[in-house]
């Protein structure tokens, strides 16, 4: 603490992340700032308006809720306390040093500023540091509120910092952590303990307040798909001839459910020409999209670039730290004039990629098309207008470019479109020819890159015009099963059902993959998911009901507005869970056996490769060695003497292709490592490899 001894009166600023601390130091400095490094922890010293600021940062949460008894198998647990994170998670040793430094810095500070992100999580992080590391300074500290990390906004935020701004948010955030911990720890311990009692071994089986309903969505969809019976129907088209071109007209009924009707219509239409009986033209406007909130950005990034929601969150946070976009964890679809549209567009004008669009919008009315969703803490996501100081990576640029184009689009005018429906009568049966045309681009020209425009031009018709019929064709079709969720649609479902928060939804989905409740990009529910849901339906149906979790979310909102006391919500949660834990306790062994069998089936299903080409009786699957932890391929006929085994690359994601090598009949697998897929036969002695070597 060499530099710090030079300062006696200073304001200690607590930030959420190291990069934010540096940006704040950059914004507040009058000439330059000093940096002190304590191990990996950087502390910034800045003088602004004759005030000295010492700026330090957390690394996300430094404190977490835990069970003071720390006995892994004991439940129920209702007495919880806040602990430094490194005492709970031994891998996070760097937290210890950070807390020590903040404690030392707090001793000489005469005032405090909480500059963490202005939302429930940020408020909780700041509150806990001020309470535990700074010695109960949470009520004295001032609070800054900013949505971008631009110099101007940060300076304004520090000038206007006030006391007590986020008290409700901190209470709600801390309550959320406590409730989630109580639900998670008790139910997960109950299930894990049940599994352990069934003598199969120990496995961490987690279920939580938001995880439960989310697994249920996937399981319900899986049931719909697995119990799907396709129904037949027919589609009819007429091929018509006009001015040298062939036009396709759809029968007015989209689906015909009786084969006889199809045959009857086809028979009637045979050798009959068509007459244009009606032409309907309609003009309509397509309004611009709403500004991005995090949910919409995650959904579009998944559709357009294939980024998972958690990946989008990570990239957008990086862009926020570069001061290129506003705070991304927002549910708002509003862009208030206070963000200064002029300044942003003039900033974007300096980038030659956006010059033309920005100039055009600056000359317009500049009224954004806003959605109804609001967020008291932050506006919708918008570009700050700053020019990137470093070269963005490809994925960062893709997301940034999408956000900029969306920002342009919301200021665009309505697009004008025309649709035309021409009705053709063939022997009393009506067929339609449809066309669509864009008359005026409007906002579409700013968003052309990221939107599919459905256009179909058709020739001019007049009523009473005769058209030559070439044929009437029928097509037998079958209903398709419901589409599986992907990460985008699951996130959307969570949003619609109002479970989880904008910040946590992506992580919940990631967790479901990690715990093997779900698999694949087109999401499948595994047997483990079925088993856990069946247990919960029997012993604690409330935990998987969206009603309960939605009720808790509503209560947390009320706590944030200081309309409800947090102890009422926590006690209510304890009451809800206590009863169901008693019933689970009574049936631990049966539950354990059921879940154990589900794990066994899922293991077989996910790791199965093919039947064994050596012994012909066994099956080849991916096995992880208990001794070394390494993965390899082996035959389950090993104990009967089958020698089939093969090493596997230890890094990368393995995808079972279901294909068999033409040379040796061993399975072919696909490995994705650093985004590069690689198909290969797993047999090290395969002839195909010898052929390649010889060619070389």
């Amino acid at each position, binding site marked *: 603490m060499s530099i710090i001894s030079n300062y006696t009166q200073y304001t200690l600023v607590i930030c959420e992340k190291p990069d934010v601390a540096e940006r704040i130091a950059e914004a507040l400095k009058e000439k330059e700032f000093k940096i002190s490094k304590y191990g990996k922890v950087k502390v910034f010293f800045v003088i602004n308006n004759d005030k000295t600021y010492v700026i330090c940062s957390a690394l996300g949460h430094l404190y977490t809720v835990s069970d003071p008894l720390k006995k892994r198998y004991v439940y129920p647990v209702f007495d919880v306390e806040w602990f430094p994170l490194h005492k709970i998670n031994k891998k996070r040793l760097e937290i210890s040093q950070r807390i020590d430094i903040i404690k030392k810095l707090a001793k000489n500070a005469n005032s405090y500023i909480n500059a963490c992100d202005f939302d429930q999580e940020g408020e909780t992080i700041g509150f806990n540091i001020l309470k535990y590391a700074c010695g109960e300074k949470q009520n004295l500290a001032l609070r800054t509120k900013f949505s971008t990390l631009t110099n101007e906004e940060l300076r304004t935020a520090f000038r206007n910092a006030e006391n007590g701004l986020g008290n409700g948010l901190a209470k709600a955030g801390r309550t959320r952590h406590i409730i989630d911990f109580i639900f998670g720890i008790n139910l997960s311990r109950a299930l894990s303990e049940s599994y352990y009692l069934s003598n199969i071994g120990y496995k961490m089986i987690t279920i939580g307040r938001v995880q439960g309903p989310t697994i249920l969505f996937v399981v319900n969809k899986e049931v719909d798909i*697995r*119990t*799907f019976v*396709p129904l037949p*129907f027919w589609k009819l088209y007429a091929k018509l001839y006009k001015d040298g071109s062939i036009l396709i007209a759809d029968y007015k009924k989209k689906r015909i*459910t009786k*084969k006889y009707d199809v045959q009857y219509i086809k028979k009637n239409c045979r050798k009959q020409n068509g007459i244009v009986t009606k032409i309907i033209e309609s003009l309509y406007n397509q309004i611009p999209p709403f500004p991005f909130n995090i949910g919409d950005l995650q959904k579009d990034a998944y559709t357009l670039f294939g980024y998972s929601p958690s990946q989008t969150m990570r990239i957008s946070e990086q862009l926020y730290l570069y001061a290129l976009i506003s705070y991304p964890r927002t549910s708002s679809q509003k862009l208030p004039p206070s963000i200064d549209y002029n300044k942003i567009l003039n900033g974007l004008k300096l980038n030659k990629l956006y010059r033309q669009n920005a100039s055009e919008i600056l000359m317009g009315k500049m009224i954004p098309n806003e959605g109804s969703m609001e967020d008291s803490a932050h506006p919708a996501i918008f570009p700050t207008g700053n020019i990137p100081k470093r070269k963005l990576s490809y994925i960062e640029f893709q997301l940034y470019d999408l956000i900029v184009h969306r920002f342009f689009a919301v200021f665009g005018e309505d697009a004008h479109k025309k649709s035309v429906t021409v009705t053709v009568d063939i022997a009393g049966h009506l067929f339609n020819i449809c066309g669509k045309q864009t008359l005026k681009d409007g906002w579409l020209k700013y968003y052309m890159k990221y939107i599919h425009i459905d256009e179909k031009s058709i020739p001019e018709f007049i009523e009473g015009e005769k058209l030559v019929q070439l044929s009437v064709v029928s097509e037998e079709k*079958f209903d398709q*099963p419901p589409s599986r969720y992907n990460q985008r649609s699951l996130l959307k479902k969570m949003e619609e059902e109002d479970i989880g928060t904008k910040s946590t939804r992506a992580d919940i989905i990631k967790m479901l993959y990690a715990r093997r409740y779900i698999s694949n990009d087109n999401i499948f529910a595994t047997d483990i998911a079925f088993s856990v849901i069946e247990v919960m339906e029997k012993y604690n149906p409330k935990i998987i009901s969206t009603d309960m979790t939605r009720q808790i979310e509503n209560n947390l909102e009320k706590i944030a507005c200081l309309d409800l006391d947090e102890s009422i919500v926590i006690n209510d949660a304890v009451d809800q869970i206590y009863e169901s834990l008693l019933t689970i306790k009574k049936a631990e062994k049966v539950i354990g056996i059921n879940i154990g*069998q589900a794990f066994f089936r899922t293991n077989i299903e996910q790791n199965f490769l093919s039947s064994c080409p050596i012994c012909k009786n066994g099956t080849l699957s991916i096995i992880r060695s208990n001794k070394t932890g390494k993965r390899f391929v082996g035959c389950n006929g090993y104990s009967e003497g089958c020698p089939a085994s093969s090493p596997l690359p230890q890094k990368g994601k393995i995808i079972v292709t279901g294909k068999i090598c033409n040379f040796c009949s061993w399975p072919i697998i696909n490995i994705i490592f650093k985004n590069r897929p690689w198909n290969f036969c797993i047999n090290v002695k395969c002839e195909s490899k010898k052929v390649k070597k010889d060619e070389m």
Partner: protein
Amino acid sequence: MKCNLCNRETLTNTSRFCRYHEESYIKLKSGYIKWQYAYGKLDWFIYLEKVEKRSETGIWVKECCVFLKKDKENFLN
């Protein structure tokens, strides 16, 4: 009682299937009426054969089809 097609418990002591296979069976029966309407006359076992072959058909429905087709073999034997 265990389901005839998987390891799950049957819905009641008299039913042959678990909740999922029972649901598949119910959907199969209601689907049969719609298939009959669509194609005219259609034998139950031919219907089962056709549904089983379709790629859109759910896996539990296919398992039901295989099981129910055995009924015919049982009758014939």
